């Protein structure tokens, strides 16, 4: 199973490019697609899910162009859109049975699968309740269940943990990790910790372009020795933010502990620390924006 994205671009009205010259090769595993809001992640997801067509370039699923023969991919596709709805008068089982029928899954197999999925997404007790009464998190879990109905070979999930409580989020991350072994999973999010927990590969996207595609370890190696913890007085923080790339801060009795991503130490007192994926991600974004990761003169 192989997904090949070749020089894909998507132009919207007003000559705005949501995606430009995007190239990526994917095999089994979980690809975490990271990028700020409006980076082009959802555009890419919609193209890969055959919802919208690329303006230029092509996407090949096992060698077949998905724009020409979308049904080949659709048979084995699971898609959880960022924004989706449900029919409020149907209950969970009825809704999933409906989607299963539309996806062409034989009724008996669908029923067994639905039972398993409802346990998996922790909705067994609410299975007979109309979806119109579901909370946002419960609805999101129904979305996850429908995406897994046809045992997809390509699973595309766009901001899947939105609305989930912490426990459900952990559960879903584990699920994605398990699923990634035998299929291609595309996880789009701007929550770095979700990717950190699940992804075998990471792609960083911004302004419609692919900035980096690497294994998490490789991205981390890229910022090795460039992350510092610096304790400074609270009053100095605003100025420090202007001069340095600060990935996080937390307050302690001795002052503000700031994590600084920089090629040089922000101060002689700053201590080098082990980088996190968040540091690496910010470093890639900063590099794309042309920001210098050293002291601003």
């Amino acid at each position: 199973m192989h997904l090949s994205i070749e020089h894909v671009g998507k132009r919207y009205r007003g000559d705005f490019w949501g995606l430009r010259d995007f190239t990526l090769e994917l095999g089994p595993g979980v690809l975490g697609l990271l990028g700020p809001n409006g980076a082009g992640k959802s555009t890419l997801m919609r193209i890969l899910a055959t919802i919208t067509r690329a303006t230029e370039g092509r996407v090949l699923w096992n060698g077949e162009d998905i724009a020409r023969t979308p049904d080949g991919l659709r048979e084995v596709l699971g898609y959880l859109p960022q924004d989706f709805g449900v029919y409020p008068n149907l209950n969970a089982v009825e809704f999933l049975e409906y989607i299963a029928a539309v996806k062409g899954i034989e009724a008996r197999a669908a029923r067994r699968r639905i039972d398993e999925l409802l346990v998996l997404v922790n909705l067994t007790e609410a299975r007979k309740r109309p979806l119109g009464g579901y909370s946002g998190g419960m609805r999101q879990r129904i979305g996850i269940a429908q995406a897994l109905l046809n045992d997809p070979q390509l699973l595309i999930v766009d901001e899947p943990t939105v609305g989930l409580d912490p426990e459900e989020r952990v559960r879903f991350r584990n699920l994605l990790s398990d699923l990634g072994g035998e299929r291609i999973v595309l996880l789009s999010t701007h929550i770095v910790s979700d990717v950190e927990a699940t992804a075998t590969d990471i792609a960083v996207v911004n302004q419609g372009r692919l900035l980096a595609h690497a294994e998490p370890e490789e991205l981390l190696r890229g910022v090795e020795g460039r992350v510092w913890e610096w304790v400074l007085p609270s009053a100095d923080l605003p100025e420090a933010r202007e001069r340095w790339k600060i990935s996080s801060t937390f307050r302690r009795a001795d002052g503000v502990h700031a994590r600084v991503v920089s090629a040089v130490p922000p101060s002689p007192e700053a201590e080098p620390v082990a980088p996190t994926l968040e540091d690496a991600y910010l470093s890639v974004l900063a590099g794309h924006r042309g920001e210098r990761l050293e002291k601003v003169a």
Partner: protein
Amino acid sequence: MNARRSVRMVGHLMRADFLERVRRYSFLVTLAATVWLGYLVGAGKIELWIGSVRGAYNSAWIATTMALVINTFLSLAGFYIVKSSVDRDRQTGVGEILATTPMSRPLYTLGKSLSNLAVLGGMLAVLYVAAIAIQLVAGEDRRVDLLQLALPFLLLSLPMLALTAAAAVLFETVPGLRGGFGNVVWFVVWSALIPIGIQLGGLLDPLGINLVNRNLEIAATAAFGPAKRGFVLGGIEHTEPIQIMRWGGLDWTPDLLLTRLVWVLAAAGVALAAAVFFDRFDPARSRRGARVARQRTTGATEEVTSTFVPMPAVHLTPLPAASRRFRFLDVLRAELRLLLQGLRWWWWAGAAGFVIATLAAPLDVVQKVILPLAWMWPMFLWSSLGAREIRWNTTALLFSAARPLGRQLPATWLAGVALAVLTGSGAALRFVATGHWNSLGAWVVGALFIPTLALALGLWSGSSKLFEVIYLVLWYIGPMNQVPTMDYTGATPTGLAQGMPLVYLGVTALLLGTSIAGRRQQLAG
């Protein structure tokens, strides 16, 4: 809250809502339809007559004709066009933001009414320009009097449109009138307003027909002597010679102005009455919303009490390749369930009642009354065809499944046809039993036509409203009022004799093609 602040609030509410609407593609379609209405007047397809007398095409005559056309047609169509402003706030979530502001309920409903009026006023402006063009093209009187052209628009039409605009807001706020049932109720109200206004006149004549009729009768008598003359607004073939008079327009006396002002005040009253019913987007105030909120609360409670749920050891059984076998019947069954889900016992009792009535009543009554009624009963179910994917935002889920055009769409359509067959089955049995094969053929065409019309209109408009309105009008004019060309059920002997079922079969095929094209366009993104 001071008056200046209130005016500013209402003004901005009206402005934002108006801009949001006029920047939609659908507004262009609405304007195009308005231009077409103007064309019908200009081309003489809709004319104003008092017997065989009409006025020369001067500013007063054309503007008055146009104003009556607006009052008659826009008070119906305009209502359906603007009845969505509160719902839009509800759907987009903007309503919840507005609910947290100091804006009062009367200010909100007043602002929405004014926004509705602004939209209808835009259409009015288009027709005002059209009236000038018509006068110049007709060439019977080239002296364009802008005031005489404006007065009927402002004094005859604007009060009626203000009432329509406010009524649309009222219907959106009163529980039970928000949806399709409200659309039917307005149709009934509108149908009653015309004869009541014509008969009684005065303060009970919001359309102004009686007012104009009385004035024209006096003018026609003065010009050509007394005679029995009927009022006509529409197309008519004259057997008698046509007489043309010079008419200078209505004399807007204070009394006359008062009769129109009353309707402006009534419109304001209706807009403020809407505030009484307006739930300020609080789901707990509506029965359905309260149910949903209660269910949500129940769900939330369950979630909170189970603060730690150990990860279930679930193994997802791999789906064997053999189970990925598409069966059309499964999708059809699922679509039927979706269509019929949530129906209450009284709906089924009503449908069964119509079937029993068609089996028991005289055949003539079955054809002219009971079958049309039986096929009106499921209107709100058909109206979801083609539109519900947009309405409930499930397009991404459905369109990413294989062959959405070849699998889901035909199943949706057939589910609609099955509903027509089910609700009209009694009549079909009667036609078979009595050997009325032509009527049976017409019945088959009707059973195919109705859901196809619903599907096509739902797909292209993304809403159930367009079908509900068009189908209601078609049903009222065709089967119920026995107009053969509009008879899609074969209820009129003339329609059958003229081969109308064949025409409707052709229209059905065309609508089906349109539906496929519509879904194809949706799939293309």
